[in-house]
């Protein structure tokens, strides 16, 4: 077994929210009541299932995502963390992140979550003015979010928060001011996502009816470029398309995804990538919370059948994820994952065309996308990876 396969990241999905935000297409659901004991038992059972299949690894990170995992009972988070520690080796510097919504209900639990072992929190602040927050269907206002952030900073070693930009009507000047305000909070990590209209959301319906005045491509580009400029100048450069950190403060868990390392997904709708005997397996759990829970209760896991990922797909996935990172993809990583060098894996003509145009750069060590290339990464990937 190769060295990097010894490292393992663990994702835990908590699928419940107090209400559904109009832009959100994550696997999140509103339920009157949740049987916390049953859910705890289910999550632990599925952890055991994967522990049996991926024993001997060192866990480098755990990530509680959602949904709204800050609505989990702290004891559930504690039980999951303890079970991971019991079944695997925990890296000494293990990163344990929890996504939290920034309201008083949840910040009241931060202390208990910290005791449970959570050492990093990612807060869904989303916007820094009340009108935008209500447009985004959020249950908190700016003042509450700032209070929650203050609590988080006291309770956890590392704190990050999320913002959504390119909202209808947002100008470059507005966004510049909002970013400046965000930087005053002094967090070492920020996630800034461009608002995306996702199928099956309320916003998609509004957009289809022409009732959402989304910024045009030019404005979107200007907002993106402004983000890069402002955050870079403040010492928080982008290490990934939408993620900014002081060097060293990057999310280790998310780096595992982007570097195409192994991770196990626990909970409804969770995905995983697990290398077993040189074969990369894609795992995927039932999305519907109740079905997942029934399956876990009955069989010990809620997963669909594993699907082996072909070499060609592995190559696409590795590049697709890796090129989102500023560091790009190391040649050594390609050789290690795919047993072949870049010139074998990629069409020389396409590659040099994209390099010459200033979208990609290639040196002895690695292939990476330039700032220009990252800004257009979908088109760069389609052009680089299309077979003809």
């Amino acid at each position, binding site marked *: 077994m190769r060295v990097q396969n010894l490292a393992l990241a663990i994702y835990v999905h908590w699928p419940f929210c107090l209400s559904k935000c109009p832009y959100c297409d994550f696997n999140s659901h509103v339920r009157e009541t949740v049987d916390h004991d049953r859910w705890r038992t289910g999550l632990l059972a599925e952890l055991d299932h994967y522990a049996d299949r991926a024993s001997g690894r060192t866990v480098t990170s755990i990530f509680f995502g959602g949904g709204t995992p800050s609505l989990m009972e702290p004891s559930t988070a504690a039980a999951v963390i303890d079970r991971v520690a019991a079944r695997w080796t925990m890296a000494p510097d293990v990163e344990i992140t929890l996504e939290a919504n920034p309201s008083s209900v949840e910040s009241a639990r931060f202390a208990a979550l910290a005791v449970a072992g959570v050492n990093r929190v990612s807060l869904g602040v989303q916007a820094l003015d009340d009108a935008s927050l209500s447009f985004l269907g959020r249950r908190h206002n700016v003042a509450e979010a700032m209070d929650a952030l203050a609590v988080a900073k006291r309770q956890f070693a590392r704190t990050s928060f999320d913002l959504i930009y390119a909202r209808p009507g947002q100008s470059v000047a507005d966004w510049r001011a909002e970013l400046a305000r965000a930087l005053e909070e002094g967090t070492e990590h920020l996630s800034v996502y461009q608002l995306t209209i996702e199928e099956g959301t309320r916003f998609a319906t509004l957009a289809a009816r022409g009732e959402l005045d989304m910024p045009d491509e*030019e404005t979107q580009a200007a907002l993106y470029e402004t983000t890069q400029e402002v955050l870079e100048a403040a010492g928080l450069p982008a290490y990934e*398309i939408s993620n900014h950190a002081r060097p060293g403060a990057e999310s280790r868990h998310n780096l595992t995804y982007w570097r195409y390392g192994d991770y196990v997904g626990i909970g409804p709708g969770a995905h995983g990538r697990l290398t077993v005997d040189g074969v990369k397996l894609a795992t995927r759990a039932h999305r519907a919370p109740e079905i997942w829970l029934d399956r876990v209760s009955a069989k010990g896991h809620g997963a669909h059948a594993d699907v082996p990922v072909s070499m060609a797909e592995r190559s696409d*996935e590795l590049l697709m994820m890796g090129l989102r990172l500023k560091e790009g993809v190391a040649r050594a990583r390609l050789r290690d994952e795919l047993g072949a060098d870049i010139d074998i894996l990629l069409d020389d003509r396409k590659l040099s065309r994209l390099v010459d145009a200033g979208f990609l750069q290639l040196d002895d060590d690695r292939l990476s996308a330039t700032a220009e290339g990252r800004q257009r990464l979908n088109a760069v990937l389609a052009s680089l990876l299309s077979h003809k």
Partner: protein
Amino acid sequence: MTDTTTPLARIRNFAIIAHIDHGKSTLADRLIEECGGLEKREMKQQVLDSMDLERERGITIKAQTVRLAYTAKDGLEYQFNLMDTPGHVDFAYEVSRSLAACEGSLLVVDSTQGVEAQTLANVYQAIENDHEILCVINKVDLPAADVDRVKEQIEEVIGLDTSNAVAISAKSGIGIPELLEAIVTFLPPPKSGDADAPLKALLVDSWYDAYLGVVILVRVVDGTIRAGQKVRFMQTGATRDIDRVGMFAPKRVVIDQLGPGEMGFITAGIKEIAETKVGDTITDERRLAAEPLAGFKPSVPVVFCSLFPVDAAQFEHLRDSLGKLALNDSSFHFEAESSQALGFGFRCGFLGLLHMEIIQERLEREFDLDMIATAPSVVYRVHQTNSTMIELYNPADMPDVVKIDHIEEPWIKATILLPDEYLGGILQLCQERRGVQIELTYVGARAMLVYRLPLNEVVFDFYDRLKSISRGYASFDYTLDGYEEGDLVKMQILVNNDPVDALAMVVHRSQSERRGRMLCERLKELIPKQLFKIAIQAAIGGKVIARETVSAMRKDVTAKCYGGDISRKRKLLDKQKEGKKRMRQFGEVEIPQSAFIAALRMGDEN
């Protein structure tokens, strides 16, 4: 009456001619009903329009013949053979064939509309065929009917005597008995016709029937034709045994024989309509006629375009479908061709724009094909410096400029009738399209314009412009009017300096800039932004006459982190990669085929 033939004096062969929508098909229905050809419960509207498309679009495409028995006031039974002819100019050839088989015409004019362009075109053809013309003023049931004004118009514009004209409503039946009597009284019986002479029958039309094979419509001039008879087709030289003789009443009825002056159908075990030449003379193999009948000139396609399946996998299906249509439509031609921009397809020839539209619509509806058509083009005569001439059916085949001495293009003579208030706009349109005015006269408040126009200016959105300028009130008809030299050039569209073959066209130099700019602008709208900027140019030879640029995309990246759901992202990528398969490489950019398709489609709609 099936075992004996009807004496000449009691036969009336006539066509119904009219401008579209003036009521030909409805009148045919009434006559059939009145003569008891069908029981009331069997009558459906537009009995003779047999194709779904004909009934739905309200146009007659193929001429239809029906035999009716009418007992006149004189107590005698008459045999009527009536033909409902297509009203549209594209099918003028069908009309002329039908007219050659008859001695008279009912000219139907809508009493609320008056004389229109096709009224004139059809009348001139009837006159050329020595027809007696009986005027029928239709739709008198409508409040807007103005019978006297319309009669006056007919006298004034066409110069026909309207003292025998019959005013009717084909819809309600007003005037139908009077019309039936007038047919007997004023339309002539067949001129000559000798039952004992050797057989001479005109091959009027033929079509393929799934049960009977090829069915041939004939008009007997001399002699008789009967089942079992061995006949010879004088033009092709083929001989065949007749296995069936019949008529449409309008239901198909098998009879023993057809005599002089009569019309009906025969079958003779023929499998392909290509073996039957419309206008041929059929005679008795054992008693040959000395001279064939006059016949008619073959129809020639005048408008061409290329058809490509949107999905390349449908190519064979398209070939089969074109073949099936050609089975029944001897005026439709096609041959395979290939295009860099659009893949494999067919170059097709049509009688006119409506014919083209109808074929395309049938392919889409009856054969479930999704197709793209290139801009319609005409047949150019390219005279080369080596003093040979080639007929150019496809702009892509244009010889190198240095080899060209001069090019001739087809012209038409167009008749346009329109309300006076739109005259200014229409004159300007004709002028823009290089028209030469021949005549401008007035028919009451309506202007009648006669113009000579290059056909290639007419196939390009002329109809639609005419309709929109006149709010649908102008009517239009044309006849081909020879070839003339023109300052014609091949215009190419270049994408990043590579020519797009499917968009090449032959244009008059004076029109090239306008057309070039239009296409470039359109493509700019249609080609999605890419990593690299894209130059779109229209050029003649090496000279660029219009230019647009699609700027490079500034942003295209998925912002959101889907956690560990890489499969979802990979599927999006796979979709993009799949899309690339439908793209065509031009220099360093790839253009989706859909952009060319949309550019061509917009051409149809303009």
